[in-house]
């Protein structure tokens, strides 16, 4: 396979755009698992819920799915508050290890999937937007808006989250609760409330990521399971609890996948991606930007 300049440039662009999408689907896990130690394996199910919310509104009213998901993100935020409250009462308050909650979130994953099947059926759904079939061309490099728009919004979301966590009082409380809950309590802040808020935020990001997903590819209720490995891999590669690390990890995996697909064969893409993860952890066990 020839390494022509056009192919290399397009592979870089495709990898970066894909990485932006991967960052969006993974940033919620970076918060819930990386910072809060909540093994929310049902995170992809909430991505699919976000996809279907975007689909319904787009199908009925023709509104842009990504705009809809941002406007309706408080709904998923509220859902996240409820789910964390149940999780806290059943597991954390009893002092159980986070892995004990795995079965709880597995249950939520399957209940959500079956509920979506019962309500929407099993057919694939896709949304149509004004930019779905538009590709911008800069010389020999393609920029399909189907991927560019989710990338841009994802970047804004991730950067916005990072600014919120680093610069606001409540954001810093979220970072603090990941480090020392007792110290936080001594400062007069209820760590449970902070974790509840942070978990709800992670679910809200999943909802927005779901809109990206249904813009990019068809969605059916069971498709969330295919993203379980990816979201945790990005979180671990980037460094647990690091938003910048999640972004960097997502770009690394996106580029690895894109280059492998282009030059060596797409079958190798998962092996190269996860091999990259293992290699990175071998040199930096805490992840690329983990502490």
């Amino acid at each position, binding site marked *: *396979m*020839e390494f*022509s300049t056009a*192919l290399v440039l*397009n*592979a870089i662009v*495709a990898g970066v*755009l*894909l990485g932006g*999408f991967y960052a969006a689907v993974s940033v919620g896990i970076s918060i819930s698992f990386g910072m809060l130690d909540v093994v929310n394996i049902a995170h992809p199910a909430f991505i699919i819920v976000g996809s279907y919310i975007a689909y319904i509104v787009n199908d009925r009213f023709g509104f842009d799915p990504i705009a809809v998901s941002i406007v309706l993100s408080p709904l998923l935020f509220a859902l996240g508050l409820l789910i964390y409250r149940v999780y806290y009462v059943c597991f954390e308050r009893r002092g159980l290890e986070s892995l004990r909650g795995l079965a709880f979130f597995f249950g939520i994953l399957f209940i959500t*999937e*079956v509920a979506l*099947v019962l309500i*929407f*059926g*099993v*057919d*694939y*759904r*896709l949304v*149509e937007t004004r930019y779905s*079939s538009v*590709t911008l061309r800069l010389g020999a490099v*393609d920029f*399909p808006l*189907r*991927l560019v728009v989710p990338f841009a919004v994802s970047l804004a979301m991730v950067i916005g989250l990072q600014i919120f966590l680093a610069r606001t009082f409540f954001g810093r409380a979220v970072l603090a609760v990941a480090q020392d809950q007792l110290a936080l309590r001594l400062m007069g802040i209820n760590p449970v409330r902070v974790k509840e808020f942070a978990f709800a935020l992670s679910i809200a990001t999943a909802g927005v990521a779901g809109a990206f997903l249904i813009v*990019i*590819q*068809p969605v*059916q*209720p*069971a*498709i969330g399971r*295919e993203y379980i490995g990816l979201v945790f891999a990005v979180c671990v590669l980037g460094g647990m609890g690091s938003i910048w690390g999640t972004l960097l990890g997502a770009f690394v995996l996106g580029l690895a*996948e*894109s*280059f492998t*697909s*282009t*030059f060596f*064969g*797409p*079958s190798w*893409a*998962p092996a190269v991606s996860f091999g990259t993860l293992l290699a990175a952890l071998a040199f930096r066990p805490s992840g690329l930007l983990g502490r």
Partner: protein
Amino acid sequence: MSRLKSWLANGLIALVIALAGSAQAQQPLKIGFGMSLTGPLAGNGKAALISMQIWAEDVNAKGGLLGRKVELVYYDDQTNPSTVPSIYNKLLDVDKVDLVVSGYGTNVIAPAMPIMMQRNMVFMSLFGLNVNSKFSYDRYFQIMPAGPEPAIDWSRGFFDVGMSLSPKPQTVALVGADAEYPALALDGARANVKRLGLKVVYDKSYPPNTVDFSPIVRAIQATNPDIVFLASYPPDSAGMVRAVNEVGLKTRIFGGGLVGPQFASLRTQLGPLLNGIVNYESYTPEVASKYPFLDQFLAKYQGRAIKEGVDPLGFYLPPYAYAMMQVLEQAIRATGTLDQTQLAEYMHKYEFDTFVGKVRFAKNGEWSVPRMLTVQYHGVAGNDLEQWMRPGHVTVLYPAAYKTGDVKTPYQDNKK
């Protein structure tokens, strides 16, 4: 007195036998199967189930089979091959079904084969590609009209259409998902490529959960193939079609083995992006005159499908799911028995009259004559479903007996 006792005993025995026979006759005739009611192929699975339920209702309205009411016993295989063996063991050992048929698709038919062979069951199967080539089971039957060499016949039409172009194509790119059906389809494509003396310039597969297909399409484009053959399932069919349009793939003929464009959901979602693609279909309204009894079934199916939120067109799988049950029905009525040996012998020997036409099986259980249509989509505008209900957007290219027009090339100039 002893004679009276003997008479009474004989009468009692006769009464018990008569009651037992009557009870047996009243027991439903159970036909068991797994079906994809959830998972990636659930859209097809549910459509097939509706068709089989319509068949059962039709048969029961005529008095059932062998004096018994037909009852379908089925479980959701979740489009997951690992669930299939336990489903069929349960059907046979716990539910004690009288007959079994398969679920939908190569991936879930193959895992059931060892059980069928162990139990010597007739196994009527639904759209599995070349499953029996590895098993050579003499009680396997396939309702998909691929032909006696299914893997090769699957893409024969596509490549023969390609080779009808002038000048003749020289190079081909082969691509498909890493899954059972695409792997088998690509094997058959390679055999056709070898037969026709084409040069393979790209031959790779991709993971089914690939998100962005544009790197794959660009890599294919870099090899400048005359023909691009794709074997894919619905989500990656949609992904590849979108990527092909975004990258602006230039080739003379593109398509071949895409599962997905046959269904309403992908037709409405992809709409004009399907124009120019050469693909396979099992039925299209353009050839309705060749299937004189199908419209009654389709009207019944479409009414039910719309209510249940399943493929409202029903052109791909439903007619054949119904025909599969018609074959079993006719074999049972003709032999008057549920004996698996007699049924298998009958099914190998005779021709069946079904809604999809006459069906005759070859020695390996596949159709003795292929009848899968090679078509080209054209003139699709917008995303409404109504345009697909009528003839006008599908040109049948192969086989000759069903041909309605010629292929238009190159692909990139015929996307309208």
